[in-house]
């Protein structure tokens, strides 16, 4: 939803790359300086609308309407541009851009993007990716697989203990297991499900119990968030570390994400070191 009146600005997209970035950074710094220092009545008061500029307005109109703008329409677009500029510059002269939370956030976002993109940007080598994979096996290892059978007993109905016990006795007597549980939407047999799936369907306690029970025999009662179960785990395939080629896309994604976060942290640390922050207020007494 749009929470309030349509705001003018939105958010940074991360499109910065390469040397142009550094040039623009310098530009931003210098422009900020000049913007503040520009003398009254100087270039701040001059608005030139070049032919190239008008051409661009026309091109954009054409893209939208699939026809060229008329001269009158172009004049309207130019008027609109000029009034934007004038009002923006007047506002800036009045200092309305200062201490404006919206502008502060926008500028902050720009700097964050710049900081994240700081440093070299390149495709990681296989050696780097392998090192990352080895350092973070838990991020990439496929979940363990498990096959099991389960009998369900509804613990929100009275006497679940005796019902489980009775089923246990019949299991021991060699009755067909599948017929001994209570009706449920849960499956009796689960084949080669990964543990994430078991957790999704049965809850986390049940899933972690499956990894600890002995194979091939009925055990229980095992409690889950759904009720009480008797369980027989038939097979279990432990998680193994995948080869890089099996998870290359994921490893590269994580490696790059990690690199950006570290670049930002380092940049911020450098910036922070240049400031002397004195907190003179008594925080506990904030109104």
């Amino acid at each position, binding site marked *: 939803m*749009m929470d309030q009146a349509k705001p003018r600005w939105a958010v940074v997209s991360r499109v910065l790359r390469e040397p142009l970035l550094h*040039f623009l950074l310098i530009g931003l710094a210098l422009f900020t300086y000049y913007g503040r220092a520009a003398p009254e009545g100087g270039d701040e008061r001059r608005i*030139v609308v070049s032919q190239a500029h008008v051409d661009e307005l026309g091109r954009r109109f054409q893209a939208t309407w699939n026809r060229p703008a008329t001269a009158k329409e172009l004049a309207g677009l130019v008027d609109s541009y000029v009034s934007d500029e004038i009002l923006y510059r007047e506002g800036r002269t009045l200092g309305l851009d200062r201490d404006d939370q919206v502008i502060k956030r926008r500028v902050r976002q720009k700097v964050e993007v710049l900081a994240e993109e700081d440093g070299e940007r390149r495709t990681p080598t296989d050696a780097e990716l392998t090192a990352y994979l080895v350092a973070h096996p838990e991020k990439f290892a496929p979940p363990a*697989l498990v096959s099991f059978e389960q009998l369900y007993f509804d613990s929100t109905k009275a006497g679940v203990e005796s019902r489980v016990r009775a089923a246990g006795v019949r299991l021991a007597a060699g009755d067909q297991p599948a017929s001994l549980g209570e009706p449920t*939407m849960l499956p009796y047999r689960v084949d080669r499900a990964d543990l994430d799936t078991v957790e999704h369907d049965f809850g986390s306690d049940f899933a972690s119990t499956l990894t600890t029970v002995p194979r091939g025999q009925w055990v229980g009662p095992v409690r889950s968030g759904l009720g009480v179960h008797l369980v027989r785990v038939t097979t279990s395939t432990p998680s193994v570390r995948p080869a890089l080629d099996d998870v290359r896309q994921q490893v590269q994604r994580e490696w790059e994400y990690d690199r950006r976060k570290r670049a930002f942290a380092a940049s911020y640390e450098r910036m922070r070191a240049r400031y002397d922050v004195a907190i003179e207020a008594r925080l506990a007494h904030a109104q």
Partner: protein
Amino acid sequence: MQRPRLAIALALGLSVPALLAGCSRKQPEQAADTASPDAAASTAANPASPGYPTRVFFGDTHLHTAMSMDAGLFGNRLGVEEAYRFARGEEVTASSGTKAKLSRPLDFLVVADHSDNMGFAPDLIGGKPDLLTDPTGKKWYDMIQAGEGNAAAMDLIDKFSRGILPEKLMYAPGTPPYAAAWKLTVDAAEKYNEPGKFTAFIGYEWTSQVPPGNNLHRVVIYRDGGDKAGQVEPFTTYPPAGSTTPEDLWKVLQAYEAKTGGQVLAIPHNGNLSNGWMFPWDVNPASKQPLTREYAETRMRWEPLYEVTQIKGDGEAHPFLSKTDEFADFETWDKGNLNLSELKKKEMLQGEYARTALQTGLQLEQKLGVNPYKFGQVGSTDSHTSLTTADDDNFWGKNTPSEPSATRASHPFAKTKLATIMGWEQTASGYAAVWATENTRAALWDAMKRKETYATTGPRMTVRFFGGWDFVEADAQAADVAAAGYGKGVPMGGDLKRAAADKVPTFLVAAMKDPAGGNLDRIQIVKGWVDPQGARQEKVYDVVWSGDRKPGTDGKLPAVGNTVDVANATYTNSIGAAQLAAVWRDPGFDPSLRAVYYVRVLEIPTPRWTAHDAKRFNVKMPKEVRMVTQERAYTSPIWYTPSG
């Protein structure tokens, strides 16, 4: 073969590890299976694939990130990547500075940022691609390559200061910054989409807000990958490129499919803030035209689902429209339109709530020949924090200022001179549940298209709903409810074909609690129909419930009770049922009348997010703040249409 050994404790209440330690004999590890992990990645928790969906997947079809202009203004600094990472279960640092993590990962996510001004790139940053196509930009680029960056920078500053830098930034389709924003969105979805594990849909929100502020928003979801979805930029609402009329959106969706051979659908939301415009019943206020058969056909062509519950209120039913339904007044937002620029009038409500719209659809079908409101239901968050949260004990609010704090509940959420919505009125809701054969874009999208979905207000309860002519009580107790359901009927979202003479429609319903949530209170079937006079009618039936409660003389089932300890924000599952199932026959069936049926499942009462906040931050909530909630699920309907 030896009989299976048995290790059953005769006394319950022992912890499992203790029990096992005491009675199990270690077995050698079974040989590992040899099939590749890939083959098993999408294996359902069910044996052989029966050809119908055996698992339900939970996700959010409607999440905003910092790419949305308003989200960014509100201080959301988390982008699309963080949104995906959080939905996949990873910890992120919220924009308000604290760590946030879901209790359980979701299965899918649609990042649906506002198309208008999407990724409004700042002049310096977003202008870059354009700069290179511009002669001046190209000149500077070449100067930089030649090591003359400083001179280029001075030139830039000069031109910038004199206002002759080409003004390249217009955040509308067809402009480079817009293309960059869309590309970023598409690329992130491609990067985080992992078939079988987590589905990242490509999508956006078309944010039609007809003056004075009537909400006609739609989330657009692509079935396709970036190769197709990346070919066409999102449709906006600002003229001249965009439009606030849904018919225009539908044309754009049609054009997308024609151009790319892809598939796309749209999900409207927040009819409750449309001031009667979401489900018109006569003249379409958006186009000022009377509703036509073409309108109905086109709307149904593109909008199979409706987002019925979310943070800005629940839209299933309204107490004014459903006066005898004691559960209709749930998280109701009915003060005005989206921006509170116009107050609500009672006569607007019939164009806003799903239950009534489903009945209006039947009326319109009689008149136009096609039902424009034959929609299925999903829930989603519409969160603007990049954090998809719908759990009351882990609710991160609508936008960054509503992230957890001692004051978020007691501060106004939205305020105009006409009305105020307080922070505590935000609803920790909801998610979309989708019955699909596997967790992929194609399988989930196809399930959405055929409406095999339901809405939940947060809990991940499992709900089945089938309609047919031959269900018998034993089907509800079958070892495989789904096999009976698909074998003898149609699932949620389906149509009942004409019955043999003297047949009455039967419905098979089953629900299982969220393994990490509250027990179930009851399953209800909500029936809507058009009477012989052409009037809308509705009735809520209690179908199966926990315990041994008996309906009173008024036909009402007594309340399930309440175990909530508000001060400690806790409850116990000592009331309610873990699962409920039944077969229900419509006692009021008239084969000559159109009807629509859907299921509502109620949980037992649990602490509302405000109770968790009060406990966590040790604050006293204003007395009007609701502290207890009753979570629920709404399925897509099953329709009955008389033949002839």
